[in-house]
Structures are given as structure tokens and as C-alpha cells.
């Protein structure tokens, strides 16, 4: 009895060693931990991803597995190395994550966000651009912009983003001296004075939803100025960036006029942010086929998905491909699934699953589901 338990324990231990890493700080991750899973603490997870950021299917998994574990993979490590090695006084470097559907772009971005939080960056994270431009629930709030002629505001989405920004940067907004540089007059009575903290600006946007888009515009401008003057370092992460450059959105004005993405105020604010006319920051974008409709998903490469305009907008950028699992990663993932009881059965199941899923992480997860 004892020996059997002992054997069992040994096996558990050896398994635990091969697929899990106890290093929970992304800044400490290195080549040795490639393919291993690390766990994000629940409270941290809530802070970072409460308003979106993790894919829906992954959220379901975290509930079943009772933990949020992300695999350490090469693309994320590459970007971290690049960030560490780069000179912050030079214009920002744009990193573009691209890859097939379900290869883990969003999760790589989540890993990087965790890194940015640990390193004390100010995070500007857009969970999924298509949520604004392509998803049209029955009551999508939409108004004509009052400050810019011919533009359209998405006040509710903007306010939601501000809330997301606030929860992600709680600590920085509380005790940092991030001041705004000029007066903003919203209406006759409402005004934000120069020198008040940016938290006040955010608070105003959340309370007065009507002005949320203008607040975002101002906020992003102020953050650029603050980063230029080295008061904070900024980490911009936009998921599904190519949605900004798809010729049409699915939004209609009440007069049934189709809206182009460049006619939305939010688009312009965030495109300003992805220009390289500022420094002391990092910009990580993902380009996803899922962000555009089915008929325009022929290729996952940046030039195709960004169109000429978007490609020229980003032009010197660092493309980083997020690929399928390597053999080692696949094995460790399979072990992890076995540990979480998600995968069971004989061990030659893995070889077959590897073949049928073509080592695509999302497909692999899906195909394990009914087993």
C-alpha cells in the first residue's frame, strides 16, 4: 500500500515538475520556462481582466480548472527581452503579434500585460476592438460628436473602457503625481483644470458618460505628454487592431448611414496612440483574422489584414509570429490537461490529437473537450 502511494506521489511530482513553473513573476521568466504554465493570482486576474482581455473560451476553462494558468511561450519572452533591451528615449517601438486563429495571440498579450503591471507601466489596454466597431447589440448607444464635425461617439463603450483603465491602473492612479497640462472645458459648468490628477479626468468620463469619448481623447493626449516628460512609462496593448482598418464597420446611424471606422472618435484617439511620435512607451498590437468578417480571412499576415493604409500607418514595426505548439509545448500542455482532468485515456491519444489538431492550441483544447 505504502509503496503504491509512494509511486503515485513520485509520478505526480515528476509530472508537476514538467509542466508547471512556480515562478509567478513574468519578468523572471526565461528560456528555461518555455512551455511551462504559471498561475496568475485570482485578485490580480480580476484587476487585469475583469472587463475583458481573456478569450471567452479560456474564461470557461479557468472556471473548470479553478485557476488561471498561462503558458510561457517564446513570442512573449521575445517581446520582454526587446522591451528590456530597447532605449526608452527613442520613439516607441510597435510590436505586432500575428498568427493563425487560435494560436494564442490574446493569451500572449495577457502574459505581457501581467509583465507590464509587475514592471509598473501605465497600461492602456483595449480588450477587443471589434467589440466597439463590429458587435452591434440591440441598443448600441451612438451619438454624433459635439466637438468634432461628422464624427460618431460611442459613449457607453468609451465609459466602459475608462472603467477598465481605472481598474487596471488602480495603484498608479492613486498615489502617482500624474497631472494634466491644460484646462478642459466640457460645458459651461463642468471643467477640469490644469494640474488636477488624471484620475479626476477618468472619474469625470465615467460619471458623465456623454463626454466619455472626449475624455478618452484628452486622456490619451495627456498620457502621451506625461510619458514624453518621463513621469510615467506607458504600455499600450490593443487586441484585434486590424478592425480599425477594415473598410466598414457594422454600425449604422439612425439615418441608416453606414459608418466607416475612421469616422468613430475612439478610432482616431487610439490611432494617435499607435503613432511613433512619442517615447518612453511600448506598443503591442495583435492582428487577428477573427476581428474581420469571414470573407476577408484569407490570410493571417499583417499586410493582408491591415490593408495598405494600416500597414503604412504602422510601418516600421516588429512583427512577431505566434505559432502552433512545438513538440515540447504540446507535451506539457497535454500533461497539464491530464493534471486538470480535462484529458484522460490511453497515452497514444496524444499522438492522435497532435495530428488531428495540427498542434493548434485552440483546436487541441476543443478536441480534448468530449474525451
Amino acid at each position, binding site marked *: 500500500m505504502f509503496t503504491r502511494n509512494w509511486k503515485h506521489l513520485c509520478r505526480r511530482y515528476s509530472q508537476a515538475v514538467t509542466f508547471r513553473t512556480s515562478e509567478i513573476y513574468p519578468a523572471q521568466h526565461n528560456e528555461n520556462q518555455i512551455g511551462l504554465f504559471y498561475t496568475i493570482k485570482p485578485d490580480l486576474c480580476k484587476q487585469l481582466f475583469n472587463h475583458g482581455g481573456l478569450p471567452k473560451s479560456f474564461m*470557461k476553462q479557468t*472556471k*473548470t480548472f*479553478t485557476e488561471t494558468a498561462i503558458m510561457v511561450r517564446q513570442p512573449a519572452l521575445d517581446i520582454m527581452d526587446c522591451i528590456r533591451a530597447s532605449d526608452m528615449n527613442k520613439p516607441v517601438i510597435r510590436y505586432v503579434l500575428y498568427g493563425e486563429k487560435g494560436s494564442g495571440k490574446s493569451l500572449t498579450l495577457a502574459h505581457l500585460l501581467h509583465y507590464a503591471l509587475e514592471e509598473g507601466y501605465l497600461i492602456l489596454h483595449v480588450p477587443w476592438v471589434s467589440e466597439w466597431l463590429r458587435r452591434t447589440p440591440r441598443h448600441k448607444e451612438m451619438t454624433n460628436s459635439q466637438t468634432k464635425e461628422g464624427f460618431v461617439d460611442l459613449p457607453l463603450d468609451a465609459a466602459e473602457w475608462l472603467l477598465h483603465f481605472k481598474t487596471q491602473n488602480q495603484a498608479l492612479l492613486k498615489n502617482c503625481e500624474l497631472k494634466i497640462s491644460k484646462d478642459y472645458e466640457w460645458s459651461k459648468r463642468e471643467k477640469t483644470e490644469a494640474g488636477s490628477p488624471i484620475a479626476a479626468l477618468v472619474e469625470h468620463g465615467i460619471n458623465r458618460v456623454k463626454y466619455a469619448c472626449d475624455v478618452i481623447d484628452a486622456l490619451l493626449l495627456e498620457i502621451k505628454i506625461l510619458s514624453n516628460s518621463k513621469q510615467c512609462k506607458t504600455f499600450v496593448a490593443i487586441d484585434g487592431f486590424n478592425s480599425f482598418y477594415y473598410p466598414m464597420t457594422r454600425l449604422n446611424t439612425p439615418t441608416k448611414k453606414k459608418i466607416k471606422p475612421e469616422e468613430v472618435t475612439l478610432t482616431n484617439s487610439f490611432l494617435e496612440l499607435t503613432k511613433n511620435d512619442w517615447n518612453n512607451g511600448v506598443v503591442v498590437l495583435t492582428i487577428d483574422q477573427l476581428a474581420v468578417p469571414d470573407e476577408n480571412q484569407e490570410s493571417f499576415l499583417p499586410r493582408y489584414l491591415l490593408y495598405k493604409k494600416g500597414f503604412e500607418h504602422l510601418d516600421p514595426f516588429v512583427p512577431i509570429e505566434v505559432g502552433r505548439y512545438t513538440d515540447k509545448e504540446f507535451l506539457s500542455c497535454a500533461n497539464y490537461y491530464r493534471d*486538470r*482532468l*480535462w484529458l*484522460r*485515456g*490511453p497515452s*497514444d*491519444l496524444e499522438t*492522435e490529437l497532435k495530428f488531428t489538431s495540427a498542434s493548434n492550441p485552440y483546436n487541441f483544447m476543443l478536441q480534448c*473537450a*468530449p*474525451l
Partner: protein
Amino acid sequence: MSNVLIFFYRRLKNSSFNSSTRTLSKLQIRNYAKATSFPDYYQNPIFRKEDQVKLIADSDLKNRATVPVKPPTVSETSSVYFDPLVNKVINHVMEKGNKRLARQLVEKAFENIKRKQIERYHLASTPEEKAKIELNPKDILYKAVENCKPLLQLQPIKRGGITYQVPGPITEKRSLFLAIKWLLETTDEKERTVHFPEQFAWELLEASNNTGKVVKRKQDLHRQCEANRAYAHYRWQ
């Protein structure tokens, strides 16, 4: 009929060559329009690896080598996760030959079962409780079907102008058919807002616990058979 003709035609053609190996290889080639249009003497294919190993071990292979064999269908694979009962259930769920959708629905139901059970597993506090929880959805399906299988059936038999519901034994095949049919019929009695996979998962879990509507239906049938035992002699009189 045409298949048979082609078959004999080929045999004639080959016999002129007088090459035995060639005849054998030619026999394996079949021109057919539908999978169902095979003559009676065509044997069912043996496509599972373990069955093939058994065949070789029993040295039955020689006998089968000369007999023509039907091709396996697309779903009959030697894959590790092929399961005959699951395949059967998928075929029952299928409508208008849309097997892809049927398979997706059943697999989704399995996923739901798995998620529910894993959640319960994590909630359970003691190891004994954890050991009790069945995590494999296929095992749950087997258990559920086993629990739903009726042992007796009622046959309407006309005697003296009156139709009696006469209890009698049931074949293995029909009881399996009834079990799957009842499971699916009960699943269909759902609210419109509930999706098939959710309800099916629920029914399977219930049935595997020996509770739920389907098991009750089986017990009702047994009770009816018990009540009608007086008519049992009509089966042979």
C-alpha cells in the same frame, strides 16, 4: 444487381490471366454506387486495431482473406476515441444525414457533462467523495444506457377480437434501441430556450444515477408488464 454482374465479369476477366495473386487484389477493388448495395456474402469490415490483432492471433485471417469485405464507413475509424455506442447515439441524433451536426451536438453534451463533473470533483472535500464521482463522459453514457434498457416489452396480440397487451421478453438489440430512443425523446421535451446538449447532458447524468424521467419510464413499462402477466400465455396459445 449490377454490382454482382461487375464482380463476375471481373472474375472472368481475371481467370483468363490465371494469376491467383492478381485475382485476390482485383477482388478487393469494388465499383459501387452506394455502401448499401453489397451482396449478402460481403463481410463486415474489421477496422479496429485490437480486433485485427485478435483476428491474427486466432488465425482466422486465412478464412477471411478470400471473402470479399465491405468498405468501412467514414465514421468507422481505428482512432483511439472511436466508440461503437457513441457512434450509435450520434446516428440516432442525426437528422437528414447531417452527421457532422449530430456529432457536434453529442460531443458538446459530453463536454457539458465533463465540466459539471469536474466542478463537482473540485467541490468535494474528502478523497472518498472524489473517488465516487465518475468523470469520464463515455462511461456515464454507458451507465445511462444500461440503466435505461428495459428487460420486458408489451406486444399487442389479437385473441378473440380483443387486442391484449402481452408481456414478453425483449431482444438485446431492441432494448438498446428503446433506451436510446427514450433518452432522446425525453431530451426533446425541453424548454425552447434550453439547448439540446445541455438537456442531453442533464438526462444522461440523471439516468446514470438511476433517477430521472427515462428510468421512470422503464420502470413504468416493467410495472405494466407485471400487471398484464395474466395475458402472458397468449404469446403461444
